[in-house]
């Protein structure tokens, strides 16, 4: 059966798939970097003493967690421009979607990690005369960050896979390219298998890197 398929022919489409891979990685990396910053801000915001700040954070997190990524993507690409009055390129929209979406989940990861640090650590810092911000920065955050790595890795992998949904808003990423090729050349098995392998390669590499990082930080 396998022999029926023209696996060697995939090579002809590699350049196009590489373009797709480029956009998948671009959106994943830029989106997750922004998402991490958002997650830090809203994660700490959620446990802030100010009711206003923590309420804003809760609203953001709940809206994102309560709606599907696909709906978020379509809303940002097709609805948001009508509200703000400017077109968004599909890649820009894609980055916004991944950033906003991962940001909410990362916020919960940050909150959980910070809250898991023993209360005595904050008290010890404060009793030495460090202010709240200094204690956060030098004592709480470094310890919380270590605990964040496994769930963060998990979220990164989820977000990378979520980028495939962005094909519906015409982001020229991997699966978008794959569908173009397969529709024109009737090689769905070869192309979609190759696409799947690409995703697997990205996520496995990431897992590996994160595991090494975790082990290094343990000591």
């Amino acid at each position: 059966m396998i022999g029926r398929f023209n696996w060697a022919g995939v090579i002809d489409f590699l350049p196009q798939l590489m373009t797709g891979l480029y956009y998948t990685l671009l959106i994943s990396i830029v989106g997750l970097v922004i998402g991490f910053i958002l997650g830090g801000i809203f994660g700490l915001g959620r446990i802030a003493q100010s009711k206003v700040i923590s309420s804003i954070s809760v609203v953001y997190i709940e809206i994102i967690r309560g709606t599907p990524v696909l709906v978020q993507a379509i809303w940002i690409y097709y609805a948001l421009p009508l509200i703000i009055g400017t077109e968004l390129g599909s890649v820009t929209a894609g980055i916004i979607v991944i950033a906003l979406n991962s940001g909410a989940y990362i916020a919960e990861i940050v909150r959980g990690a910070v809250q898991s640090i023993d209360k005595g650590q904050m008290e010890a810092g404060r009793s030495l005369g460090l202010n709240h911000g200094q204690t956060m920065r030098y004592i709480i955050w470094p310890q919380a960050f270590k605990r964040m790595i496994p769930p963060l890795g998990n979220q990164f992998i989820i977000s990378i896979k979520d980028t495939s949904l962005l094909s519906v808003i015409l982001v020229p990423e991997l699966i978008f390219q794959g569908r173009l090729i397969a529709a024109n050349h009737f090689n769905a098995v070869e192309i979609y298998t190759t696409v799947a392998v690409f995703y697997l390669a990205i996520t496995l590499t990431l897992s590996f890197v994160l595991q090494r990082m975790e082990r290094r930080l343990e000591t």
Partner: protein
Amino acid sequence: MITVKDLHKTFGDNEVLKGIDCEIEPSEVVCVIGPSGSGKSTFLRCLNMLEPVTGGEVIVDGYNLNDPKTDINMVRTEVGMVFQQFNLFPHKKVIENLMLAPQKVRKISDDEAHERCLKLLEKVGLADKADQYPQSLSGGQQQRVAIARALAMEPKMMLFDEPTSALDPELVGEVLEVMKQLANEGMTMFVVTHEMGFAREVGDRVLFMDEGVIVEEGVPDQIFSNPQSERTKEFLNKIL
């Protein structure tokens, strides 16, 4: 050095401190004893505002802690604190535990901080552990590091909340020894403790607390040998 007037503290509608008056002189060692839940820790934590006061007045080294204009971080640099659970920073080496606050709060140079902190480690007998992480130390060693960490800020007084209660019995002595040495050097100390031997030997004054008030206070000999209050007698009978 510390003046406490009619101190009240409530958690929700649970009144834990019900009017405490107390005066602590420079170089005095005051030991606080009393049953569990009597408010000893809460009292101690009010002295550096780890617990906000809900009524009355606390004046530390001339700073009124109730005054919103008081820079609480400033006050805390003058008041060292040692916790029952040590609360060392596990992600920092022993020497870094000591150096952090002097560097970030007092803004002294790295070299000076290192030198000063190494001396303090020598003082508590742990200079050879400077580059280890706290987890690799015994409980007694960790608590001595915690004392050195508090001293690194050169505080004018020290608060101890049951510093030996989390330790195996054979490790209690080394910590008390360090505290005794501090007391002999003239440090003002406020010590919540179950170590009656220490209170008796090192304390200048003993406060007996029960149900949120100071029931009785006096020199150790008087409290331990000739307590006036029934509640003090009962408590001492139970533990001695």
